[in-house]
């Protein structure tokens, strides 16, 4: 009986293996910045911090919100007003120091990998959506790409 059980288990596990193969990594994308829209829940009528999660694709970086040169384009979020939501100034993470290998003396301040921007809000009870745009300018180890704008939507419920 137990042997029969294992045999049946083997048969049942086979499709699971197929599901696993469907999850195989997709071809590596060339280059992009991704925003992860996640539903968030905060306390109604109280000051809370919403989190906006971004990821810079491996091998690239974007200027931080405070690049070390006024001529570099900072990462910046512009958000539209939303009914029932009072938003304070966006809080950006600190960047990390970066230099191009051919000129280690020139220090830049950048975001790479995952970075999170915080938005302090006080919201009335209910579901809310704040629309906005992330403007950034990305480079890799040797070249830079023109400034881009990425639409974002902050979805949250105040309870």
């Amino acid at each position: 009986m137990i042997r029969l059980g294992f045999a049946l288990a083997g048969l049942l596990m086979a499709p699971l293996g197929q599901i696993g193969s469907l999850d195989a990594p997709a071809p590596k994308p060339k280059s992009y910045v991704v925003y992860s829209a996640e539903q968030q829940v905060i306390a109604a009528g109280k000051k809370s911090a919403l989190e906006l999660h971004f990821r810079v694709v491996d091998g690239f970086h974007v200027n931080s919100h405070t690049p070390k040169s006024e001529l570099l384009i900072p990462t910046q979020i512009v958000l539209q007003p939303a009914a029932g939501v009072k938003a304070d100034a966006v809080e950006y993470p600190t960047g990390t120091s970066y230099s191009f290998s051919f000129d280690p003396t020139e220090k830049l301040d950048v975001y790479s990998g995952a970075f999170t921007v915080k938005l302090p809000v006080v919201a009335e009870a209910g579901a809310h959506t704040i629309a906005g745009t992330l403007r950034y300018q990305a480079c890799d180890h040797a070249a830079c790409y023109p400034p881009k704008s990425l639409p974002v939507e902050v979805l949250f419920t105040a309870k």
Partner: protein
Amino acid sequence: MCRKDVDVKRNVLVFGVMVVGIALLLWAGWHNLRERRKAMQEAEARHVVLTPAKPGDTAGLPAADDSGMPHLRGKVAPDFTLATLDGKKVSLSDFKGRPVLVNFWATWCAPCKVEMPWFEEFQKQYAAQGFEILGLTDDADAGNEAIAKVVKKSGVTYPILLTDGKVQKAYGGLDYLPVSFYVDRNGVVVEETAGLGSKDEIEAHIKKAIASGAAPGTGGQ
């Protein structure tokens, strides 16, 4: 109850637990797959591609490879006439018979600003061989003041020209910066580079452009 009955009941119980466990695993796998597909679709909908499509779709323009780099090597450099920061018109053909480095850059491009002082140094070093550099600013909307500030900080004295949208297309679309074209005395592109290279590599390309083509006074753009 006899021992055999107890064994059968135990086996049935074990089998039942296994079936439930396997069913849970299957459900978890299916659920995970569905969530991942959904997340991938959302990410796909929101992604911004920083390495744009090949610019070779437009007839008459140089095709690019997967890196977005145009194939102008061995071809005559497209001529252009552009304005300097003070409004003076400069054409590539003005430098007929001389080796020229056509460098596209922008104020927001940090690696561009690394190599610009090197270019200035090389222009002085190889001036006797007729070598010239033209710096084409790919972000004319930054304003003359910002451009002039970078130029001054870089110590650049070679001509800085404001692009017009057409010249970028003529040179392959220029999806990223810096991009440089080393043009010989006959007006032929002998080398093209995208991204920041080493100072030694840049000098080697300049020497190649100087060495290539006919002697001064013959041929040209």
